[in-house]
């Protein structure tokens, strides 16, 4: 965006996607500090909310907010983090910018939520139940829940707040440690390596098939390194 770029003439227009992205970046940066500048954080978050509301309104089109809420998408909720995305997900509209904008929004929000997931998973919002609310009021008065999940970064503050609280275990919940389970790395399992790699990694299976001996020794070497590291 160039400097001096005029404001959108229509105050009701959705923001340019670059503006939205910039805001997301700012929010991210703010949250990265151990002690974020609260005023900056709050102002950016509120500005983002305004933009999102505007974008949602635009995506719903010029028809009344009472129209069957398009937010009611039956997208499967795979884990509680994604549930926060429900209210923000919109079906692609005709406007060419929208697809890009909305997918960018989704990506950005997911990024923030991933960071969040390390500290505390979003309180699982139940999107199906909240859709009628969102559709009916279409307004800013909806409970913080519906809009907050999109801007859950502030939850980061509540749990990390300024002192680390008890939820420390939660930080590591989502890390998959099954790869490092001891029995898999015992020497006896090395002979069955081919089977092991076949189960865990389809790529290495393809590799092993093509040039057996060479790849086996490579993988053996790797295993040794890893086992050695694990032993440390």
């Amino acid at each position, binding site marked *: *965006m160039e*400097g*001096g*770029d*005029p*404001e*959108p003439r229509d*105050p009701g227009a959705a*923001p340019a996607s670059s*503006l939205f992205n*910039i805001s997301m970046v*700012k929010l991210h940066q703010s949250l990265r500090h*151990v*002690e974020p*500048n*609260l*005023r*900056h954080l*709050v*102002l950016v*978050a*509120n*500005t983002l909310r*305004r*933009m999102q509301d*505007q974008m949602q309104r635009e995506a719903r089109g010029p028809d009344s907010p009472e129209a069957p809420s398009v937010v009611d998408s039956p997208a499967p909720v795979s884990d509680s983090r994604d549930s926060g995305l429900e209210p923000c997900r919109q079906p692609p509209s005709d406007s060419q910018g929208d697809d890009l904008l909305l997918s960018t929004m989704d990506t950005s929000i997911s990024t923030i939520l991933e960071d969040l997931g390390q500290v505390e998973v979003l309180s699982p919002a139940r999107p199906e139940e909240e859709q009628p609310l969102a559709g009916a009021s279409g307004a800013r008065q909806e409970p*913080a829940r519906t809009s*907050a999940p999109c801007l*859950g970064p*502030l*939850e980061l*503050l*509540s749990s990390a*707040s*300024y*002192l680390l609280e008890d939820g420390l275990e939660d930080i590591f919940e989502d890390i998959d440690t099954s790869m490092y389970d001891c029995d898999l790395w015992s020497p006896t399992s090395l002979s069955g390596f081919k089977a092991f790699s076949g189960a865990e990694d389809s790529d290495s299976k393809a590799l092993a098939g093509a040039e057996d001996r060479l790849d086996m020794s490579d993988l053996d070497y790797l295993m040794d390194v890893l086992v050695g590291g694990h032993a440390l």
Partner: protein
Amino acid sequence: MAGVAGGGGGGGGNDFQWCFSQVKGAIDEDVAEADIISTVEFNYSGDLLATGDKGGRVVIFQREQENKSRPHSRGEYNVYSTFQSHEPEFDYLKSLEIEEKINKIRWLPQQNAAHFLLSTNDKTIKLWKISERDKRAEGYNLKDEDGRLRDPFRITSLRVPILKPMDLMVEASPRRIFANAHTYHINSISVNSDHETYLSADDLRINLWHLEITDRSFNIVDIKPANMEELTEVITAAEFHPHHCNVFVYSSSKGTIRLCDMRSSALCDRHSKFFEEPEDPSSRSFFSEIISSISDVKFSHSGRYMMTRDYLSVKVWDLNMENRPVETYQVHEYLRSKLCSLYENDCIFDKFECCWNGSDR
């Protein structure tokens, strides 16, 4: 760099001509980060001007007495005292460094020959005493001129020490340290009209202190939500009323001012008055809230009005009218069309201060 503006009478009517009277500090481009001035405050008489910088230093300027040989000079300000108020600290619990940057300085009303001021960084407030020494005593009985103690048994006669003039020395000494009362960053301090108490405000809380007591403070405002994810507003400035020691105001990032009366309850979460100007729908934009965020609030000396500063304007409010200001001044309206770029480079978050002149004009 500090600029001290001297006002001169204008050509006609009420027009003031403003011009720079003095500029203190380095003019070249390369200014060390630590020298950047972060706060400025005159004392009550205007004879002293205190500046705080990012390096935690306070420099006080004193106005020279006007003399007849230079009748046009309004009195130049020269360095009076320099001292290190705050040092960088390390918070081991949170593993972060607390900046030594001075956020605010407030003078106490003068009660004797010495001057007192409060200076604060993000977390700690300090009371400093600045005193002059222009005489020293000579002819002690128990001490040599070098300061070595004399053997009392050797003293055969007593003498009265005499006071001799010496070069003026200005000393600053920390008298009180008010620490560990703020979780968030302190943005304001304000001395009460009772001259005994003062308040300190951070993003979410305001505490009341007694100047003599450093290990205790009272929390009088707390806007921290139960869940931080519901946080939508922070405190940006706070000030005591100049005459009513039970009244204070605080401003928010949403452009509102709340007036509170400490007599109504111990925790002033419910305001007595709420000042907010409705948003002008024609100038609404995504940045409306950011530019409405109030960065400073000051009562007039009369106590009848208060002035607030937001990003683009200064507003004067009558305390008896809550729904809109009585006067609004656009300070740099030309920036309104550039809000987008100012947002990108974070300049839109800059804070400005405001103040009344001596006669509230």
